[in-house]
């Protein structure tokens, strides 16, 4: 960390976080990439990592439970939903971490507030508009010659990267239209004053021009993604991510998004196809990264605004809930189960899972363990799942 940056951080951070070892650390590992996958709508954790051996599970979910013989067993208590079978190879290769009971105290059950809390790494009673990755990048900025601070593939939100001054590139539908505009805007300088709205337009244009020019130079549309991705928008997003990284675009973060997890009704119809895409997508992405010799440099992490209610509702669905399991995968990941499965007998407010792992532990893992950036704003400890 540069001294100037440290002083700025120290000036705003409370004294309790004033820990001397932050003063000196090795340079951040900007050769390492974080790939975030947002499961939009609140993924039902209990049908993703299933406590199949707990009789309470079947009792709470008389019509939507996954039959015990269809569960892909991880151990004697837990197993993955059958749609996630392509991920079992990563599990057997010990490159898949299953993090249990991820949540936070006083959970908020609103989609929007929930995802804001996750995106900004705040406590439930705090509000912030700056994404957690942008807070990390404020402590240590990615190299200036990188294409961008983050690339969002697809139409998802820039959530964790959100900040007024971050360089974020959004590449929808393979980015063809964006690349065309990049060429057209190449010569247009147009910067200037005006009101805040105009300043925003001009600044956005400038940021787009710089980032897109860096991607354009790599001809990513001609790069072999390296694997067959599942059909559909989510698979296309991950294929785009594979082409960007395989083509040598330098960027510390790529974010993909799959929506539709708000399964208040008919969950048995609606959730399995989504999990199928997640499982096949992550497996294909791992294969592609191995082909490009990048798998040791990639950390894949899922997240969602909340899990869902343990007890199914009267519509064959589940209402908004709290804690849920998430996945972290990569060539350097020490595979296994991390954290405790929340109890189905001891529920929060009598109906929701009590979190056992704070979601900021996942962020600490990415920032501290993966990139080597001390993050005083995160009090939670990393999960300890990156091998040396």
């Amino acid at each position, binding site marked *: 960390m540069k001294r100037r940056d440290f002083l700025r951080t120290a000036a705003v951070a409370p004294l309790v976080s004033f820990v001397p070892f932050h003063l000196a650390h090795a340079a951040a590992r900007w050769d390492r990439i974080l790939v975030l996958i947002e499961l939009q709508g609140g993924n039902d954790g209990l049908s993703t990592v299933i406590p199949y051996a707990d009789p309470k599970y079947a009792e709470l979910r008389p019509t939507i439970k996954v039959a015990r013989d269809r569960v892909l067993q991880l151990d004697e208590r837990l197993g993955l939903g059958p749609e996630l079978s392509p991920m079992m190879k990563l599990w057997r290769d010990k490159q898949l971490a299953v993090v249990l009971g991820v949540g936070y105290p006083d959970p908020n059950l609103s989609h*929007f507030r929930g995802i804001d809390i996750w995106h900004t790494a705040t406590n439930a009673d705090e509000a912030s508009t700056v994404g957690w990755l942008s807070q990390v990048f404020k402590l240590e900025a990615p190299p200036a010659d990188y294409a961008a601070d983050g690339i969002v593939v697809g139409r998802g939100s820039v959530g964790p990267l959100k900040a007024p001054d971050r360089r974020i590139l959004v590449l929808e539908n393979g980015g063809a239209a964006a690349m065309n505009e990049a060429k057209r805007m190449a010569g247009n300088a147009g910067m200037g004053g005006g009101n805040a*709205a105009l300043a925003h337009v001009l600044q956005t244009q400038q940021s787009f021009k710089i*980032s897109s020019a860096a991607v354009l130079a790599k001809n990513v549309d001609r790069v072999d993604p390296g694997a067959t991705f599942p059909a559909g928008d989510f698979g296309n997003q991950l294929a785009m991510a594979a082409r960007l990284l395989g083509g040598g675009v330098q960027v510390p973060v790529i974010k993909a998004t799959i929506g539709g997890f708000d399964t208040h009704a008919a969950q048995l119809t609606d959730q399995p196809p989504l999990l199928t895409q997640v499982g096949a997508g992550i497996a294909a992405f791992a294969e592609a990264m191995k082909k490009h010799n990048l798998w040791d440099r990639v950390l894949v992490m899922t997240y969602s605004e909340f899990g869902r209610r343990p007890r199914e509702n009267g519509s064959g669905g589940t209402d908004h809930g709290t804690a849920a399991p998430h996945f972290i995968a990569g060539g350097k990941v020490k595979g296994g189960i991390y954290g405790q499965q929340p109890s189905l007998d001891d529920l929060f407010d009598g109906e929701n899972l009590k979190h056992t792992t704070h979601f900021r532990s996942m962020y600490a893992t990415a920032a501290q363990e993966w990139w080597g950036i001390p993050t005083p704003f995160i009090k939670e400890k990393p999960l300890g799942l990156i091998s040396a």
Partner: protein
Amino acid sequence: MARPNAEIRHLLARTGFGMAKREEIDALSGRSYADAVERLLDNVSPKPFLTTPDWLNVPLFAQIEANLPKERRDAMQMERREDQREMKAWWWAEMLNTPRPFTEHMVLFWHNHFTSAINKVNRPELMFKQTALFRTHAIGNFEKFVKAAAKDPAMLVYLDTNSNRAGNPNENFARELMELFTLGEGRGYTEQDVREAARAFTGWRVVTGNTNAGFRVEGTLHDGGVKRFMGRRGRFDGDDIVDIILQQPQVAEFIAEKLWLNFINDAPDPAAIQKLARQFRDSKYELRPVIATILKSDAFRDPENRGALVKSPTDLIVGTFRVLGTPPANPSLFPAVGRALGQDLLDPPNVKGWPGGLSWIDTSLLPARNAFMFGVAAAVEVQATGMQTLATQARRDMRNLPVTSIDANTVKKLGAMPGEELAELLLPVPPAGGPAGPGGALGALLLDPTFNLK
């Protein structure tokens, strides 16, 4: 010819679709500003301008449909998808054609407030009925509006009230009623209130099976027990819950702030919001007077606030085609343009609607807007010069654009205007200078970064 009246231009841009035709500005310019505001409000109409789609009168044989063989049901669903596309195109056409753009501006405002999405509701006739409800209550009484929206068939489906039943409550509607429709997130209610309110809406059902979708309470599915809600106890039903919510002062503040953000700028003045909220509450939630106050306010009229808002994609598309065009021959092209620019009308991204404001412009949407405006500028060039051979890029830009809706006579008339007069008609603030492109002086203004503002 005199310059366009800048204050009336601003009023029409902010109550319509980001800009206005010269005739529309001139028609309101010969009177006092306050008169012009009242005249606009008088013109808001519960009736649409265009004739309604014919499939609206197709009976809703939901029960019968469920018992049909699969092939027959699939065929009906195919037909319904076609009707969904027509529903979207119909609304774009209404916005493009109506002589009362303020009406459709408010319908869109409420669509972004009491959201529903056709991809979940499925039945286009229910979505039509919902937009009709928004037209009816556009500037009416908010209390009646909330109660009607709670019983609206599309809403009953979209937020799962239709499967909310005693003993197995579904909280989706109850939560959004407080979080998004009335109080604002976390402002004066608890999780307990959400659960209890959900019980009060149990048994609320869509009536289908005849020619007109409606609402009824299914007694056997309704939880008639005592609820504890916001410190009260009683055998509340849904209307009672709305009544209790509307006694909270946060409701008027929340709606006043939302109106401010829609009409004035991105930075509501807390003291002014308090005053507007008081007026709104004192008038028993009448919308017209509070909207009139906003439109006549010093803040609204402050020249500093001209160009302070980003045009929504709908503003950009509808405004541009209203000013440059004739009524479009093929409105079916418009929904896809809206989707590409980030606003697929009748299919909002989620129940919170489009966040709007500066978020309409990001590093993904700005290039999409530029591509759209390049296509419009290319079409302007074609219409102005009668050019038959086009550059490859211009052809690509115009692909999938409703270019035939850009009218040669209008383009020629605008092209003949003195430069400054044209700039004052098309832009809210002086031009900042944009990329080189087709369409001459008119094209240069369309491609100017300030064309994104209103």
